[in-house]
């Protein structure tokens, strides 16, 4: 039995310790906002935050998430950055099919938490792990820039 803390709520789950967090979230807890795209950490659709750090839940064993704070797309707007990202995503009508967008938003939220005013290169580096087959990248970039804070400085060591 594992105890996971997901979006602020403790969940006791009876799953094998090596079961990837993705399947615990989707098939056991029932949070389907985090998506399955590849299973080998190539596409980013499964991106969640573990203690604020973006993680590929499709290759993260649940035992490695135990005792940590897991945040999924369903709770991304509990932060100000998350709220503003969601608003920007809607203002710019970013998604097409939408399947990759949970992972995109989670990656973008982590980027902006570490670098409130990312450059294009910062955006490239942080977001190139997230594939979009529909080709919404230029809108994702524009939405991130809309949320960026030009006056802010990057966190020390961020």
């Amino acid at each position, binding site marked *: 039995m594992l105890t996971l803390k997901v979006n602020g709520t403790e969940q006791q789950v009876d799953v*094998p310790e090596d079961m990837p967090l993705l399947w615990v979230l989707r098939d056991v807890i029932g949070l*389907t*906002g*985090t998506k*399955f795209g590849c299973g080998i950490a190539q596409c980013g659709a499964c991106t969640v935050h573990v203690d604020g750090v973006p993680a590929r839940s499709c290759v993260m064993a649940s035992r490695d998430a135990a005792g940590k704070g897991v945040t999924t797309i369903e709770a991304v707007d509990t932060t100000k950055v998350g709220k503003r990202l969601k608003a920007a*995503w809607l203002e710019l009508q970013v998604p097409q*099919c939408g399947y990759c967008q949970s992972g995109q938003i989670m990656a973008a939220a982590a980027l902006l938490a570490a670098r409130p005013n990312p450059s294009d290169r910062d955006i490239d580096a942080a977001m190139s792990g997230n594939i979009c*087959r529909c080709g919404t990248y230029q809108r994702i*970039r524009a939405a991130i820039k809309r949320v960026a804070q030009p006056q802010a400085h990057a966190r020390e060591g961020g």
Partner: protein
Amino acid sequence: MGHVPAPDDHASAHALTRRGFLAAGAAAGGGLLLSFGLPRLTRRADAAGSAAAGEFAPNAFLRVGRDGRVALIVDKCEVGQGVYTSFPMLIAEELEVGLDQVTVEPAPPDDKVYADPILHFQCTGNSTSVRGGWDRLRHAGAVGRVMLIDAAVQTWQVDPATCRAEHGEVIHEPTGRRLGYGALADKAATLPVPQNVPLKDRKDFKLIGTSPLRLDLPGKVDGSAQFGIDVKLPGLKIATVAHCPVIGGKLAHVDASRAQQIKGVYRVVPLDTAVAVVADHMWSAMQGVAALDIEWDEGPHPNLAMRDIVRQLDDASQRTGVVAHSDGDAAKAMAGAAKRIDAIYQDPFLAHAPMEPVNCTVHVRPDLCEIWVASQVQGRAHQTGVDITGLPPEKVILHNYISGGAFGRRLDTDFIGEALMIAKQVDVPVKVVWTREEDIQHDLYRPYYYDRISAGLDAQGRPVAWSHRIVGSSVMARFAPSALGKDGLDPDAIECAAPPVYDLPNLHVEYVRQEPPTGITTAFWRGVGPTHNVFVVESFIDELVAAAKQDPVAYRRALLDESPRALAVLDLAAEKAGWGQPLPAGRGRGVALVYVFDSYLAEIADVAVSPEGEVRVERVVCAVDCGAIVHPDTVKAQIEGGILFGLTAALFDEITIENGRVQQGNFNDYRTLRMDEAPFVDVYLVDSTEAPGGIGETGTVGAAPALANAIFAATGKRIRALPVWRNRPRPA
């Protein structure tokens, strides 16, 4: 364990259930999107007369309830192209309701009632949605409006000319009296449905031509949107499948004893060419598959390799084909030409690889079958359920979902049939999810095309003859054999080649049907026939340009006397791209002109090619004339995305076979352009009052040739076979 209640728990109270969902999901400021259909357990929703008591439903596209709620029924699959917004806009415009007053429901399966006017059955594809829906849906909305006004006129006993409809109400101008559509529903339902109703003038459009927030976007941004893969049901099991890895092979024997020891594995289900493991969750299902001891019968060609397939195509390319177009005498004109160019062009097998891998959920009970799936062919999906279960049609319920990308994959029902076969073996609902490897290796592929093309030029470099032989699989022969022409001519295989957009004299086009070895099934891929034909035509035209030592835009202009709209987009793209400005060494600019799906598009790509031959697309400028536009931002988005989709495939992608096995398997070896490689796509829309043209696939069609022509401009090297990375210009 969380789940959403099945929407059909109480069939007789479906109105109540619907209201409950409305309350639960209404998005602030926008219409509510229901991501799954409400099944009719006792009847199929169809034309007027099937509405529940107190509902006004003059046609299959709208219902108004006594409570004033307006349901708009969309018969297409939302694959990201925005149809769950554009279709409601078309109806709402004429019905005189706001998008904030409507709920959107997926239509039930019905190939007759919901036949696409262009495709003639219920199908989302070939960029027909807005083209086919433009008149039909506005008419449906206008009928509703006219009848609701008439109901008010009869209620008030006033002159019809004094009443008008606005935002869900009928207003009597002289007195200011108003009646909401809900209050009029009962009366309107008693009136005869008129056939001819006036439609608005374009100048009076309030909604069409604007870009309101797409109704499906809030759910796609907060994680609540339910794709087929997200279905949750009481007692649901998850299954995954291992298909025979050798093309054409089948299952010989499976020993499931180790798999059955794994905690969470529920059942192992052998099929003809695959084995499924049904389990408590996807992880146990995958562990179960890994623990199977499977012996495959490798079938008729276990050593199949690409060279065998290409050799068959090359042999076929030397046969005469079915004539698709013949003007003048191409052979004679070619013989008399000052210069002659011959080429062989090749387009590879391509996978669809939508972000949402193939999946389908099925529950088979003795007297009822339910299917939960995103399908581009709802009627066929439903029929698959009928065929496999043997149940009568009204006992098979299809719940259609939004699709996490399709690109043509969900035009086929192979995976639905497979899920039904698995579900028949168990007593519980089962969600069958393919891994990405299975999704890519057991996809139905865009065919490999092998074309021979020749042109003759006069002394001034103008074309005097053009002969094009297209060789490859006929997708239409499997998908819709009634669409084949005389002598088996596949209209899709020759589309945009017979004839091309240009005025070409002595034009001769043939098609030779050559199917790949058994075990490879071909299918429609975004842009369908035009995607491979326009790569060939637009690249080859550029070869004529080079032979004539002329400018690619000017040369094309001279061949477009009959096509002012094509000229206009070519000129607009050239202007916006700065065509003609010199570029630094290692950079090149290429153009492609497309006339497809009743739309005109010109794409100009800028590339940088490194000394090692690495190609980077820096920017694409695109001018589009797609006639009247419903939602301009969606058109831009579809072009932006469609171009990237075409570029990705042209740069990187192919499905290859060695030792009878597909060599690609996941996004590490079937690549997609990533954020740091993707060019900015700059889209310019031409204002037009022409009838709407298709746009979902149009950007994709021009991408590969714009790229290849840009690479030629940068390097002097012509690419005649895709993908670029395998055939890239290497340093001399």
